[in-house]
């Protein structure tokens, strides 16, 4: 670890901290329909959308109506995405929007991708530049990057309204919240970021791919379509092009994470330099961080917003510390290799790292992208040391509530707040209260349903896959505990709607495509429903005046208790699986065994 590395991590966090309040207050105004500077541009567009679609913006929805509107919207957009993927080779304007003549996407992969982008997961079982046409990228995948993020924000705001509501039956209007999230926050933010990225060298064009001669041709074993392997001299390279910057901006800002290229943010056309790397990491956290301040303002308890922000920050620093430490110390089995810092690399475990960014920025990126449900990567998580790799895995397994996905992180954290308040109430033997609302049995039932669906999906799919040598294990590149980590990570990433891959797993098979599809849908929609049920129930409640037994939710004690509950729930649920995966791998590495 170096002072320079910590300085960069500190600078990153300082920027997130400084931007939280202004953006958080702005979003509170947007969703509260207060006046903002941006109204002059966005309001006419908003009115036009409602006029064309027949939406009554004054209509308020009960939680069930809100949930069904969200489900119907997601279903329709998912099916349209599937259809476009399946027909991308025969749709119009092939010369412009599919210059490489890429074929229609296979059915199971098309469904997996449609579910993946609809659920804000952006899991990619394919090589994007060899599979998706420019049309598919722009019309469906980039569209979902906006829509799924806007839906997440709308849901978080609905939950906050549930907490803030006083004897109300409604949570707002799903269509209005989604439209405002897009027009007031995501579109302007991604437009600015896309222009900055273009200025730094991220490509934005419709050109066919370039073919360039290699400076050093090399020989490689190539397997042809007939299955025969021959030795060929490789003397050219194909370099992908396309409308990358526009996709890259919303990919990070909407915590989507699906790369235009297979190498994701390690590709120089997606992430050309240290400045773009810094901005992309900042874009992951900026909205989720600010939403905590939006929470504080909307529930009229700014201290509560900051207490939640502090809990997220503590978990973030714990993750980045472990990851940075483990990667800086490298692999003890490579004691004969000189891995000390040099002008070319920052020392430690450099396998799978981009030399342009080094270990500090790889550890920070890996932590941020899994704290949030982003899933973009600038290094190969599979190549991290066991303890370095456990950090992204644990971040996902905790439910991605450390800042978290846009909106999804906040409502996930608020479910843990409800559980924390309930446990605090049990400790002192009083009816638990959260900001003046009594937490009753139905709230806790729904909160626990939310908490339990996640491990149910992750562990069930991982266990079933482990038991199937031909369908499941045959896709793994590594055996032993490392193989288990790869498999566990895949289903955690899918159910958590993260989308990053540990790698080392060929997921483009019928079993993985279909099981991961179901895991993504379960992890998104079956968790949202009980969350909205809690919100709807809270909104109906009377306000109870604070008393001596009220547990304050804006104090350091609350923050400590919240962090403790999150860690205990995560540890109790997943410790056995982690013990068989990365923890065992670490102990075996110390004993001289690797996989």
């Amino acid at each position, binding site marked *: 670890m170096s002072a320079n590395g910590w300085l960069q991590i500190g600078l990153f966090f300082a920027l997130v901290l400084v931007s939280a309040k202004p953006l958080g207050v702005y979003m509170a105004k947007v969703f509260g329909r207060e006046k903002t500077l941006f109204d002059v541009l966005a309001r006419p567009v908003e009115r036009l959308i409602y006029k064309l679609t027949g939406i009554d913006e004054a209509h308020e929805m009960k939680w*069930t109506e809100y*949930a*069904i509107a969200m*489900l*119907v919207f*997601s*279903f329709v957009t*998912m*099916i349209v995405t*599937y259809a476009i993927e*399946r*027909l991308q*080779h*025969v749709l119009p304007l092939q010369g412009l929007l599919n210059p490489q003549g890429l074929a*229609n996407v*296979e*059915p*199971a992969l*098309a*469904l997996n991708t*449609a*579910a993946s982008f609809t659920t804000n997961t952006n899991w990619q079982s394919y090589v994007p530049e060899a599979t998706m046409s420019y049309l598919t990228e722009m019309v469906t995948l980039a569209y979902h990057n906006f829509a799924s993020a806007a839906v997440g924000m709308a849901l978080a705001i609905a939950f906050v309204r549930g907490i803030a509501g006083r004897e109300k039956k409604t949570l707002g209007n799903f269509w209005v919240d989604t439209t405002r999230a897009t027009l007031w926050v995501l579109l302007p933010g991604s437009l600015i970021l896309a222009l900055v990225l273009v200025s730094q060298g991220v490509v934005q064009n419709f050109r066919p791919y370039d073919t360039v001669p290699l400076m050093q041709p090399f020989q490689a074993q190539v397997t042809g379509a007939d299955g025969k392997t021959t030795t060929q001299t490789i003397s050219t390279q194909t370099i992908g092009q396309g409308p990358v910057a526009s996709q890259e901006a919303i990919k990070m800002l909407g915590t989507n994470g699906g790369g235009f290229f297979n190498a994701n943010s390690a590709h120089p056309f997606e992430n050309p330099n240290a400045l773009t790397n810094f901005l992309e990491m900042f874009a992951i956290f900026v909205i989720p961080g600010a939403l905590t301040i939006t929470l504080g303002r909307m529930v009229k308890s700014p201290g509560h917003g900051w207490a939640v922000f502090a809990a997220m920050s503590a978990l973030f620093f714990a993750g980045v510390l472990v990851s940075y430490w483990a990667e800086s110390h490298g692999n003890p089995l490579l004691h004969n290799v000189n891995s000390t810092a040099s002008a070319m690399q920052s020392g430690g475990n450099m396998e799978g790292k981009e030399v342009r960014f080094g270990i500090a920025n790889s550890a920070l990126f890996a932590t941020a992208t899994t704290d949030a449900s982003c899933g973009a990567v600038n290094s190969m998580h599979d190549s991290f040391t066991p303890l370095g790799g456990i950090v992204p895995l644990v971040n996902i397994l905790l439910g991605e509530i450390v800042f978290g996905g846009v909106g999804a992180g906040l409502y996930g954290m608020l479910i843990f707040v409800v559980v924390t308040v309930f446990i605090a109430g049990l400790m002192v033997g009083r009816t638990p209260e959260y900001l003046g609302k009594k937490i009753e049995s*139905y709230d806790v*039932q*729904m909160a626990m*349903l939310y908490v339990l669906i996640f491990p149910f999906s992750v562990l069930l799919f991982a266990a079933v896959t482990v038991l199937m040598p031909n369908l499941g294990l045959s896709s793994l590149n590594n055996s032993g505990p490392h193989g288990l980590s790869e498999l566990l990570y895949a289903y955690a990433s899918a159910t958590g709607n993260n989308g990053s891959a540990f790698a080392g797993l060929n997921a483009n098979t019928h079993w993985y495509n*279909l099981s991961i*599809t*179901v895991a993504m*849908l379960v992890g998104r*929609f*079956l968790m949202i*429903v*009980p969350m909205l*049920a809690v919100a*709807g*129930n809270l909104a109906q409640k009377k306000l109870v005046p604070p008393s001596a037994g009220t547990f304050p939710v804006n104090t350091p004690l609350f923050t400590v208790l919240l962090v403790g509950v999150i860690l205990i729930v995560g540890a109790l649920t997943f410790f056995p699986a982690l013990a068989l995966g990365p923890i065992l791998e670490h102990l075996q590495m110390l004993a001289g065994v690797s996989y």
Partner: protein
Amino acid sequence: MPRPMSACDLAVSTSRRLAGRDLVMWDIGMIAIGVAFFATAIAYVKGCELLSIKEPTK
């Protein structure tokens, strides 16, 4: 007299022509998975709502 083409037959033949290969059964299967999941999710909303209705006190 030949049977008039139903909407389903038309959809299948059009899909076959557009997709350029005989994978329509797969497409129907994939869409059925989506429909089944979202239908279950809507039933799940109703189930969660029913749970919130308190039983009348005896």
